[in-house]
């Protein structure tokens, strides 16, 4: 029965496509996209199947090479990572759909096979991090996705992209080294790399200095990787100068995977008791995430470049994910996990729209968006939906996750968090309101010819939308922002199961 091998096939499909794409590219460059499309589609379907299966039958464990877990590498799917896996594979699928036109305009034709190959490798890395139940295997996949990520950012033609990529490379390597040191220390005292096994062996060693050091290295390394506020400096430039589709996929998945790993290490490798009583890591992270939420929003207000604004907004939103986790109760944790899904949808949409605008007009600044509602009505509608969602307007996904986090804060008697959440929503409303105001209500300067667009058509009047291949994924994601906001019961029940798993043990 092939279905029992799905946990490995979901990783192998993108991995093999990454190897096949350069071969296909030797024959016909155009076919590369098709291979990536098919592979990411298969990956998405399998992850969907796996999520349903996990809901039905519970934890799935796959033993690589048939070796029994504490010794062999184990791939595990449970309520938490099946959901994250589906989010990643879905965003990857949408991005490949989007990439076809977008990449043709942004990258030299010779490099297109290499781009798709590295892109699929990046996706493989992210999916591998999520699915594996072995900490060292996690590190290997982390390196795969990081190295591919540096190359993807540098794929842009601009010089700044190289510098941004180099900065990210330095900081990302430091982060990966910290994580590796953490893994090494845990292995030193427990002799095990399997997450489930570590969880059983660690409690008796909780006061060992080696374990405490390992935990410190994990926390700092992962905070750097997921761009938690004081360690976010690599993120804005990386997102701003990467090709549009890369910004979208990174903002929507890479930092989410970092957040997932933090949750995984904090709550399933270590335990809630450790986080609360042995080292009060939750209060440290609580403080940092609050700073991230406010600072990210304030910095976003100060930006003029659309992509940079979205990047700073990501810094704030990552704060929400961490905040929900550090409140440590079921409601807030549900909100936090929902925000992983929801923020992926919202940020994916926003970066897709930014990419559509750049593709069509070359405009990168918010001020250039004047009167854009008439020229690109569908893209701008998608931007508005996602923007409102970021603010947290009811009936959108942003509301659902913020509501759960705020509710969880009240249940945990942490009333002081509610004003911060409200304040940050107001700040978000300021910077998105400014953009939406520019799009819909500013008069377009009549004589001014806007930008030197990459593919600007001759006629100025009327609708000049982005190509269908780019518009479709943008609109699908925007529609999902509403669907999961209005009919949230499914996603809430899935996230609730994941939250119970994190707080109650494996």
């Amino acid at each position, binding site marked *: 029965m092939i279905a029992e*091998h799905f946990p490995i096939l979901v990783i*192998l499909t993108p991995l093999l496509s990454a*190897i096949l794409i*350069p*071969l296909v590219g*030797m024959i016909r460059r155009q076919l590369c996209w098709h291979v990536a499309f098919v592979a990411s589609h298969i990956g998405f379907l399998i992850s969907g199947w796996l999520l349903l299966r996990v809901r039905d039958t519970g934890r799935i464990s*796959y033993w*690589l*090479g*048939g070796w029994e877990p504490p010794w062999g590498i184990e791939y595990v799917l449970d309520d938490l990572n099946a959901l994250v896996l589906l989010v990643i594979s879905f965003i990857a699928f949408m991005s490949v759909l989007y990439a076809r036109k977008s990449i043709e305009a942004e990258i030299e034709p010779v490099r297109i096979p290499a781009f798709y190959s590295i892109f699929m490798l990046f996706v493989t890395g992210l999916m591998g991090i999520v699915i594996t139940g072995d900490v060292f295997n996690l590190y290997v996949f982390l390196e795969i996705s990081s190295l591919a990520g540096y190359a993807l950012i540098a794929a842009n033609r601009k010089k700044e992209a190289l510098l941004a990529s180099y900065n990210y490379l330095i900081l990302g390597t430091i982060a990966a080294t910290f994580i590796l040191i953490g893994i090494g220390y845990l292995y030193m005292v427990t002799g095990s790399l399997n997450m489930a096994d570590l969880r059983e062996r660690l409690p008796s060693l909780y006061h060992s200095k080696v374990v405490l050091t390992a935990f410190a290295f994990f926390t700092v390394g992962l905070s750097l990787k997921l761009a938690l506020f004081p360690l976010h400096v690599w993120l804005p430039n990386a997102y701003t100068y990467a090709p549009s589709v890369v910004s979208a996929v990174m903002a929507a998945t890479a930092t989410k995977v970092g957040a997932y790993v933090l949750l995984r290490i904090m709550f399933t490798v270590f335990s809630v008791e450790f986080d609360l009583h042995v080292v009060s890591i939750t209060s440290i992270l609580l403080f940092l995430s609050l700073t991230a939420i406010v600072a990210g929003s304030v910095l976003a207000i100060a930006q003029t470049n659309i992509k940079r604004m979205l990047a700073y907004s990501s810094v704030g939103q990552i704060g929400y994910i961490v905040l929900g986790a550090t409140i440590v109760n079921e409601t807030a944790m549900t909100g936090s996990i929902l925000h992983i899904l929801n923020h992926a949808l919202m940020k994916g949409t926003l970066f897709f729209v930014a990419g559509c605008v750049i593709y069509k007009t070359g405009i990168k600044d918010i001020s250039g968006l004047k009167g854009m509602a008439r020229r690109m009505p569908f893209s701008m509608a998608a931007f508005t939906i996602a923007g409102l969602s970021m603010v947290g307007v009811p009936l959108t996904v942003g509301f659902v996750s913020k509501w759960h986090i705020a509710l969880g804060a009240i249940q945990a008697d942490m009333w002081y968090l509610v004003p911060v959440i409200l304040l940050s929503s107001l700040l978000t409303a300021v910077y998105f309101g400014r953009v939406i105001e520019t799009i819909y209500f500013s008069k377009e300067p009549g004589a001014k010819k806007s930008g030197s667009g990459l593919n600007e058509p001759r006629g100025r009047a009327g609708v000049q939308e982005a190509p269908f291949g780019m518009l479709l994924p943008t609109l699908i994601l925007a529609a999902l922002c509403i669907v999961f906001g209005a009919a949230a019961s499914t996603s809430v029940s899935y996230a609730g199961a994941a939250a119970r798993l994190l707080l109650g043990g494996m």
Partner: protein
Amino acid sequence: MKEKPLSENIIKRAMTRLLVPFIQLFAFYVIAHGDIGPGGGFQGGVILGAGFILYVITFGMDEGRKRISRTASDLLSTAGVLLFAATGFACIVAGGAYLQYASLPFSSPQLASHLAIFVIEWGIGITVAGVMITLYFLIGREVQ
């Protein structure tokens, strides 16, 4: 006195011609020996690649590309990984888990593991050699 270009130095050319076949033979030995002793695909692949790089250093990039074209080195890099993955798939087809060599239909599980590891060591070796050669040419081209 100005030194002659590397490629015209008779001693280096003769020594390279003499050494490269032995280096390659040693690389094959290290790859093939990997599953029963020290060595393996990665180490052997590095030696194989290094042997070829020595040839390129002595005879120059153009001469090197005549021996192994860009297509050939690209194919080598991918073929090895595909060989590895195919072995894994064969295990699934034979009814085991991915990379569960013992499930392959040979007379004994030990023999099956032995042969499958032999194949994947070759896969690793080929890929590592291909990637080393590709990297050398890429960096060398930029230096020129």
